[in-house]
């Protein structure tokens, strides 16, 4: 069986009631203390004001999670490659375009159109950090987080460079909201490295498995895990919060999950 080992040097997390990793790790270490609350995002001060005004909630969420993880390490962001994953990217923006195209006046604003690309968050991140390193943007419907983790681990094994993983989802407005069923935003980031360093939290050893995915211990966090693709990361985030050695399984595709051994 093929296994891939990577080292976690930083974690980022923004979701309703999970306000950045420093807050979220305390909550996830005692899951019964979780309280749902409206999403609160920090400002993105690394982009010029003109660019910042163009950002929707999806890109702000992705960037907030990315910075949350990256700032836990002294890494030079200009030298950092990235893997972004999202089920559907900026859903508000997509809805606005679909409404415009269904109207008699089909004019779409140029900013709306370039924000509609699935790699918009990755594009803004590279502009904000000045990184010319490779970046990829994935979708796997409900399997975003597993796809991103698999891709980041394969990149690290191939090029021996660190990699920032960001998985994020936001709800569509109606009418697509009913069909896509994502109820609220969730953004997670992992700063992953090929070797242990002074800032390493733990190592992860990954492999493909057919074992069933692990659930969350409380109903509201389990609902979050099941309802938001990026929140499939929650069992791993809980393990990262407690830092205890453990084996867990993260949901990826039907019949194909990711087994992870966490070692502090």
């Amino acid at each position, binding site marked *: 069986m093929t296994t891939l080992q990577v080292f976690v040097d930083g974690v980022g997390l923004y979701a309703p009631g999970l306000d950045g990793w420093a807050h979220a790790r305390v909550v996830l270490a005692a899951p019964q203390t979780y309280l749902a609350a409206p999403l609160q995002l920090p400002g993105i001060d690394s982009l010029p004001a003109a660019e910042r005004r163009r950002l929707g909630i999806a890109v702000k969420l992705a960037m907030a999670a990315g910075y949350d993880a990256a700032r836990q390490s002294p890494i030079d962001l200009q030298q950092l490659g990235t893997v972004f994953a999202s*089920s559907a990217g900026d859903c508000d923006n997509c809805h606005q*375009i679909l409404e415009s195209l269904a109207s008699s006046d089909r004019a779409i604003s140029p900013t709306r159109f370039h924000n509609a690309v699935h*790699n918009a968050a990755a594009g*803004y991140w*590279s502009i904000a950090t000045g990184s010319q390193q490779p970046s990829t943007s994935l979708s796997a*419907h409900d399997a975003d987080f597993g796809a991103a983790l*698999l891709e980041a681990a394969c990149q690290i094994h191939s090029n021996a460079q660190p990699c920032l993983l960001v998985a994020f989802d936001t709800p569509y407005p109606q009418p697509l909201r009913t069909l896509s069923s994502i109820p609220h935003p969730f953004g997670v980031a992992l700063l992953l490295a090929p070797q242990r360093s002074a800032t390493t939290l733990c190592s992860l050893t990954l492999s493909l498995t057919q074992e069933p995915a692990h659930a969350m211990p409380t109903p509201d966090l389990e609902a979050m895990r099941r309802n938001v693709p990026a929140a499939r990361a929650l069992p791993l985030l809980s393990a990262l919060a407690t830092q205890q050695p453990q084996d867990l399984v993260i949901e990826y595709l039907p019949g194909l999950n990711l087994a992870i051994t966490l070692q502090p």
Partner: protein
Amino acid sequence: MQPLLVKTFTTTTALGRGIAETLSALRAQRCGLQARSWETVDIPTCLGEVDDLDAMTMRADMQDFDCRNNRLAQLALEQDGFMQSVQAAAERYGRKRIGVFLGSSTSGILSSEQAYRQRDPVSGALPACHSYQHTHNMFSVADFVRHYADLQGPAYVVSTACSSSAKVFGIAQRMIGCGLIDAAVVGGVDSLCLTTIYGFNSLQLVSSRPCMPFDAQRGGISIGEGAAFILLERADQAQTDDILLSGVGESSDAHHMSSPHPEGLGARLAMQAALDMAGLPPESIGYINLHGTATPSNDAAEDLGVTAVFGTTTPCSSTKGHTGHTLGASGAVEAVICAIALRHGFVPGGVGTRTVDPSLHCNYLLANQELAITHALSNSFGFGGSNCSLLFSRKRA
């Protein structure tokens, strides 16, 4: 990284279905772009449309996936014995050991565009028959192909605008290199939709005439649709004359969301990275399939990037004058065109271009050349500053 074997490949675009029709169109320098009405488009433009998609039916067990994009995927999969080769590979390696990594920029969004015109006037609901997950969601086409071919390995869609289906080659190369899989179906599918036609129009990047890459008079892109699939396998058993994926180079511009770096810096990094991975000097490259979208700024930036790495003698052309810009599919479509060039020993001259812009200095071919090349490079650059260059080689004795 180890090279990968590119034995089985196919493409379907406005030039035709499969390799034979594509090859004969390239040999005849045929333009697949036409000024004809499509859907409800009311702006003057030429499109590279694939014929008869509206009349197509999906395989009986794949009806949930029915949309223009997945119809195009199915049509392309059924050319050149591609499905038979995939099934043979599945028997050889096991279904769990074959990945599916596809690029698309807009997936089946046309289905949602049409559904938004049919919302319930009272509730605002979409028609009950609309399946968001199987058509519009970005993963739809990889989900469709994985089920259509009954493959059970890892799968995802790369969506980095117009570099999407070039970058999937790198994903397959890394995952095979890591030992998680033995082979991968890679490729790209993008189909006509209002979002891209009106979106590029909003940026004033759509030409009203068939596009003219690298021409002094170039006035923007012509949007096309297309699909291409490639089965990538380990190259341990490669024979003389087999085609190999020998290099993948990726970079980011870190410059602007919809304009390229003006000096083509990101493009240069991607091309150099592909050469470095293959361990080849620039002068060994016999042909460059340019991204060549025919917008004034893209072609100018790419020309600076190409000439900085290769000088001004390497034969280059863009095939977007043939197919139109197939957006997220263009990386895979043009990878297949490079494979055709390597296999058949000819490099395609661009069509649509009358006079090469004198301010551009790469060796842009206006006529086909019979040339037994050994290495060909394909460039793909997308919005958000996403760049990818692929290097393909013909194994010599």
